[in-house]
């Protein structure tokens, strides 16, 4: 990255197939504006995301991780996102305790009809990560 270029974070987004991915799709087809920072991965349910995926992504140097699923009560598999929330709370707490920039991790509920919310979350999260700067893991050799 050249000095004068603005830092554009790379954010990994795990989006559940039934809600958040559709929400992201809607944001796109509605031509809503949001930064090109998001690398989406479609998962069948937010609960498919092993917290270790998040750890791996972080150590791999990704600047932020967004985990998005259906609103509580709306999970296609009824309770997947309730488990997601607990697992996310746990891994976030571990990051906090290790003083490891837990702010790089975000959990959000985005329904299929919430294109605007997706755009908003993507924009705001990108702004937040921009303030944090690059993930320091990127340049570490000892991992």
């Amino acid at each position, binding site marked *: 990255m050249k000095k004068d270029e603005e830092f554009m974070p790379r954010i990994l987004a795990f989006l559940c197939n039934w809600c958040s991915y559709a929400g992201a799709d809607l944001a796109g087809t509605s031509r809503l504006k949001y930064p090109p920072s998001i690398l989406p991965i479609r998962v069948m349910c937010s609960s498919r995301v092993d917290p270790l995926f998040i750890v791996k992504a972080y150590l791999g140097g990704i600047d932020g991780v967004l985990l998005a699923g259906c609103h509580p009560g709306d999970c296609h598999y009824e309770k997947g996102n309730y488990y997601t929330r*607990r697992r996310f709370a746990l891994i976030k707490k571990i990051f906090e305790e290790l003083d490891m920039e837990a702010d790089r991790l975000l959990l959000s509920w985005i329904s299929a009809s919430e294109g605007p919310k997706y755009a908003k979350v993507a924009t705001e999260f990108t702004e937040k990560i921009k303030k944090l700067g690059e993930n320091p893991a990127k340049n570490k050799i000892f991992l």
Partner: protein
Amino acid sequence: MTKTLKINKNVEQGILELLRFLLDGGKVSGVFTLKRINKEGSVAYSLVTRSDELEDAVPLFPLMPVNAGKLLSRFSLRGKSNKPVAAVVKPCELRAFIELVKREQGSLENIFFISSTCGGVYPIEMAVDGAVENNLSKYWEAVKKGEIPAQIRPACRGCVEFKPYTADMTVDLVGSSDIDKRCMILLNTKNGEELAQDMKGDFLEKELDKKILDKFQNKREAERKKLFDEIEEKMKGLDGFIDIFGKCLGCHGCSKVCPICYCKLCEFESPDSEYKPSNYESDLKKRGGLKVPPGTVYFQIGRLDHIAISCVGCGACEDVCPVDIPISIIFKKVGESVQKLFDYIPGRDVKEEIPLLTFEKDELSEVED
């Protein structure tokens, strides 16, 4: 008040007498206890069925060669014990076993638990040259006075869960000034009462001395704070983490001895965790260098993710670490913080579900956006 058996002998003799009574009277078929292996102070957990084999048993020996929770899991993994067994274990060993039972790695059935208020155990390295043996009298002096014995495991120094939650019997040790003369055993459960019935000794009603134990608790809490503060000072982000774990050998000894790490096929030892040439290439392109083999930080954070929720703070991990990384303090500290999220104390009650296997519909709004 709790029904209590008072045996007019020193505490070690007293508990041996109880164990003999249980075996000879046919109340249990086996006793699971620490037993001396040789004169140098090596002890091992053993299952004893004949009371003469109890001669060199040392149920209260301040050493934890392996967390007994792990051993009792192996004992009952393939099926519950058909015959009643009395197990003498430390409080954190009992809690570890409960956590394993929750994970279907053992059965509580037909095992009766005798535990104690716990003064802590010495690091394993002190067992090899007789150092534990030489320290025993000092150990018991400290325990009697309700003080923290010198040189015990760091995890024990800062342990505030020194009272067993679910033991059938609790031996009153910490701060109990006359353990040289008598042995007090609180019979906490119906099973405990039935086992002790007809035993020679006095039966009375008693509670553990709250004042004495509160004082002890305060001392432990002060130590705990010191240990946590020290580690917090070092645990500053990824750099701090790398600093601490930079000398990790990757032997995975810490997970091998951890009672909560029960997986036979560890994810971090599976072929999936092995770097392929393409992984090296892509990582090296990014970083320009890479520790070989990579994965130390991933292993440690991964292990935290897997077991911090149930870490009982026994200190076994740190005890075996060849390079003296303060792992147990790190795991205990992070563990307690995640346990607090769910108001969970590992091993407190077998009916309490592991927090990650259940949920409340309305909770944790602070982590969602």
